[in-house]
């Protein structure tokens, strides 16, 4: 009996090659996509679970709530909190440690490079179990002239030689010191939010000139982790953080409590990857998000659903052709249960074939996929869980795909089937198929619209007018470092002489740096306690506005012709009340300061914080997205303050490469001890959206897959329908219908479900996308969604037409008597 089932199943597969291929390929693609997404999601969920103390490690976050500004969340904390929080919560916290990222200049055997190194506390070695392959990390982190480095770092400088004991020279701020490599650890795996290649011990005595790094309560430069004592409740800490701040922080100078503008919060280490807290770019490396995990899981489910629908549709469609076989089996004594088993067995068999092909696809495409998402994904055949999930999936798909036809077929009354001598298509199964096609296309259309919106938003964000001309701008970094700072004027002069250089301007930040630097500003005569407002600060050079081509709304830019231009330093004695200076603000700052027009602002005087100098506003510029395209435009001022220059922006013409190498040549002759680093403004700005861009490509790929699978199904269904309607087509042709009439007839039959799918998909997707777009400060206007909907509808319809049309045409061309002769 069983042998007979297998034989019939195999013969059916071979006889209906097209259906079999569509079923198997569609299912394989669906399963492969699911497996790859599952591996991706599994990896996302595994972040930082590998640490021995994963469950007891937390990170302290700081949020600033400044009047008139949106809250500024940061994932870092002030340096002094490290020891103070430990003392404040002796029952709850076992240990704390800090990581502070710096880019010292590293010298080794003639190489001069700026390397990212984390300064950290000795407790790091206890909290995080780095896999040490040589040396002793505890020793390394207890010595302020030792380094613990990873294997890649060691290989980069020392090749195959034993790195332990090798000495490199680091220059960090004013301190130049030899560091001995005393520990080497394995490169951190991909699935941790830590991204560390080298560690040095924090010796606060080294940073007395830079108290903001570790010594100030209102500067947050440290990732601060703590270990919760066994049995302690993290809730106790969270509930008392405000009391802790107000008890521990030094007076801020303003009125009220410290917690009015500064709060702490706590996040478990294992939550960091999927529930990002701070602003984009403030983590050691880009994090993922639960939203994208949910999106990808949904896509996997949808793709699998589409593949299952194909399976069901083709199985029910095909099954009606086997009515005779079923009837005969019944006449010969088959019980209903046996028939159900037979048909379910067949679909499970096809599903198993799909699985095998799907695993082949995973093997082929997992490599490129891993590389694209920047993970090391591997498919582990030995993993019991993976295997049981896959087997379960196949049984599920096979059963879902087979259960309806199995039940319908086995329910046929043999007498009717045999007497009617035709396919026993029930209205129910046809309606079900149409319904499922609608579902498939609604999903596909929804995915197309969502993908377009994601691309559209990215395009909008990256092509948005930032308020300055971002083209042909090169950023030269490291100009504020010791060894470069004193040469700034001479270096700029030399750069301006180079061919291709149009202009060059120093400034404190470059675009998209995301730096947050603010000062209190108030209008002359205002009450400092109540009327002072916080305004974002950049330090700029005379040439800054011309180099960036920034629009001046009113007034004049800084000029060397005015001796008073600039920001006076804070005088040491109170008598210097009479000093004067000038500043340039943007429109938002003008409004924030209470000016009703830019005309009123220009010529007015303000004071900044503790600086007694009277500052004249000499110009108001148009608002620009200098800080970051991802944030809301803030009130800003642009001070002429030469002490603070850290980048040089060069406007060039022609090809950038020769200009860059010429500038590097000048740099190397003038400042050989400082590493040369350069970037381009447009690429730096685009990099802010790198993650979105990667995800939108993934989304597009999977949406494409979903459509391909849906179309495979539609093609199978269309050819089946054409086959079933052969007689009708024959009659119509005898009545004078042309090939075109027939093709139109069949195409229209399949256009109806696609049109209905549009009607269903549009409102749902548009609602979701409008909600999603609202999370962006600068977003695509909603009417674009209408265009996306219409295009997605057109695309889906055209794909359906092409899919159905070819098949319909070949059917329509056959001689009608062939269809009518054998009734």
């Amino acid at each position, binding site marked *: 009996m069983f042998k007979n089932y297998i034989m019939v199943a195999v013969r059916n597969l071979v006889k209906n090659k097209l259906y079999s291929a569509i079923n198997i390929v569609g299912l394989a693609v669906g399963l492969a996509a699911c497996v790859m997404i599952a591996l991706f999601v599994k990896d996302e969920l595994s972040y930082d679970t590998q640490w021995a103390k994963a469950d007891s490690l937390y990170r302290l976050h700081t949020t600033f709530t400044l009047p008139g500004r949106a809250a500024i969340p940061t994932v870092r904390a002030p340096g002094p909190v490290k020891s103070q929080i430990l003392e404040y919560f002796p029952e709850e916290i076992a240990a704390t440690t800090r990581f502070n990222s710096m880019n010292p200049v590293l010298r080794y055997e003639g190489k001069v490079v700026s390397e990212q190194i984390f300064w950290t506390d000795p407790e790091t070695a206890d909290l995080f179990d780095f896999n040490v392959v040589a040396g002793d990390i505890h020793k390394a982190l207890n010595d302020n002239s030792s380094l613990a480095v990873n294997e890649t770092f060691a290989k980069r400088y020392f090749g195959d030689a034993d790195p332990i004991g090798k000495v490199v020279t680091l220059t960090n701020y004013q301190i130049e010191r030899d560091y001995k490599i005393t520990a080497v650890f394995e490169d951190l795996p991909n699935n941790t939010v830590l991204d560390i290649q080298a560690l040095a011990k924090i010796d606060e005595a080294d940073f007395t000139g830079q108290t903001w790094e570790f010594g100030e309560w209102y500067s947050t430069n440290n990732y601060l982790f703590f270990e919760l004592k066994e049995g302690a409740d993290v809730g106790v800490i969270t509930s008392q953080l405000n009391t802790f701040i107000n008890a521990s922080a030094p007076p801020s100078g303003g009125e009220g409590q410290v917690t009015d503008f500064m709060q702490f919060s706590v996040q478990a280490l294992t939550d960091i990857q999927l529930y990002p807290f701070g602003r984009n770019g403030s983590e050691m490396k880009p994090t993922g998000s639960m939203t994208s995990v949910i999106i990808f899981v949904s896509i996997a489910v949808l793709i699998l659903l589409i593949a299952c629908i194909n399976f069901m549709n083709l199985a029910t469609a095909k099954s009606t052709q086997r009515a005779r076989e079923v009837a005969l089996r019944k006449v010969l004594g088959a019980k209903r249960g046996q028939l159900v088993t037979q048909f379910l067995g067949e679909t499970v068999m096809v599903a198993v074939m799909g699985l095998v092909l799907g695993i082949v696809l995973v093997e082929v495409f997992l490599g490129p996929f891993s590389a694209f998402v920047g993970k090391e994904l591997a498919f582990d055949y030995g993993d019991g869980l993976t295997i049981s999930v896959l087997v379960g999936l196949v049984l599920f798909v096979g059963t879902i795909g087979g259960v309806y036809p199995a039940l319908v077929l086995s329910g046929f009354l043999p007498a009717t089937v045999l007497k009617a001598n035709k396919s026993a298509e029930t209205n129910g199964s046809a309606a079900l198929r149409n319904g499922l096609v609608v579902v498939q296309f609604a999903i596909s259309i929804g995915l197309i619209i969502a993908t377009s919106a994601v691309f559209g938003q990215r395009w909008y964000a990256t092509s948005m007018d930032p308020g300055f001309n971002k083209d042909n701008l090169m950023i030269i970094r490291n100009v504020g470092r010791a060894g470069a700072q004193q040469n700034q004027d001479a270096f700029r002069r030399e750069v301006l002489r180079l061919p291709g250089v149009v202009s060059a301007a120093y400034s404190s930040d470059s675009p998209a740096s995301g730096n947050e630097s603010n000062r209190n500003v108030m209008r002359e005569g205002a009450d400092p306690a109540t009327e002072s407002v916080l305004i974002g600060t950049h330090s700029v050079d005379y040439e800054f506005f011309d180099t960036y081509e920034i629009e001046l709304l009113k007034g004049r830019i800084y000029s060397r012709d005015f001796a008073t231009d600039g920001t006076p330093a804070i005088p040491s004695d109170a008598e210097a009340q009479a000093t004067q200076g000038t500043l340039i603000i943007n429109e938002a700052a003008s409004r924030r300061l209470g000016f009703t027009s830019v005309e009123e602002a220009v010529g007015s005087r303000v004071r900044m914080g503790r600086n007694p100098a009277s500052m004249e506003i000499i110009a108001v510029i148009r608002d620009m997205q200098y800080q970051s395209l991802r944030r809301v435009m803030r009130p800003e001022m642009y001070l002429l303050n030469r002490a603070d220059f850290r980048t040089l922006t060069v406007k060039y013409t022609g090809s950038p490469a020769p200009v860059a190498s010429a500038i590097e040549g000048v740099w190397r002759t003038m400042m050989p001890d400082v590493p040369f680093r350069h970037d381009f403004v447009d690429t730096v700005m685009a990099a802010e959206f790198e993650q979105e861009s990667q995800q939108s490509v993934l989304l597009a790929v999977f949406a494409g897959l979903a459509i391909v699978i849906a179309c495979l199904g539609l093609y199978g269904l269309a050819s089946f329908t054409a086959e079933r309607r052969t*007689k*009708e087509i*024959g*009659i*119509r*042709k*005898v*009545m*004078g*219908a*042309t090939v075109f*009439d027939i093709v139109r007839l069949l195409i229209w039959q399949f256009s109806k479900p696609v049109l209905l799918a549009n009607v269903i998909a549009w409102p749902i997707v548009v609602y979701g996308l409008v909600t999603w777009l609202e999370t962006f400060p600068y977003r695509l206007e909603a009417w674009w969604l209408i265009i996306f909907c219409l295009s997605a509808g057109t695309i889906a319809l055209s794909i359906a037409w092409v899919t159905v049309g070819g098949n319909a045409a070949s059917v329509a061309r056959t*001689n*009608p*008597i062939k269809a*009518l*002769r054998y*009734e």
Partner: protein
Amino acid sequence: MLKLHNLSKYYRTDEVETVALNSVNIEIESGEFVAIMGPSGCGKSTLLNIIGMLDNPSSGEYVFMGEDVAGYSEAKLANIRKQNIGFIFQSFNLIDELTVAENIELALLYHNIPSKIRKERVAHVMDKVGIAHRAKHMPSQLSGGQQQRVAVARAVVGDQAMILADEPTGNLDSAHGQEVMEMLQSLNEEGTTIVMVTHSPSHADYARRTINLFDGHVVTENLRAAQ
């Protein structure tokens, strides 16, 4: 009306060549009622299909209303066919998903006739064959005789000059068969040319001429005096 000269039809497979029609010469005048008879496999249906331009002859001449159509393209043939020829099949060949009225209307659908006129003509022809009370019914709800009446109505609704009937009574009991034959006869009296394939000598008697086919040859032609 039409003239077949030395017309042959072969079916070829890799191994055998089957001759369905062998140098057939037939002439049919306008307004004639011709019956084609012969045993199974003698080529009756092939002949009818070629006359109806549903199939192409392998060789020979086919002159239809003064035009040699043997080499015409499919589209051109389809056009001549829909203007001039109506079909009635043994198995009725109604579309299951369409109502009686819609099945009849189908024959006008490909003629660029405005909807209103189509409806009028369908109503008229349904009256004529006595099926008007079943206009909204599906074919599966009708008896065989009623279904064939629908098929006849469909064949004549376009005012075709010629009706080709392939065993129109083969699936019917004798009473219903009689009905259909009388309908064809009255159509013929109104001037429609009718060519009918049949196994039944009594039904062949309705025709004025009988052509007997055997193994692809015309063996005899019997003329009957007008009744």
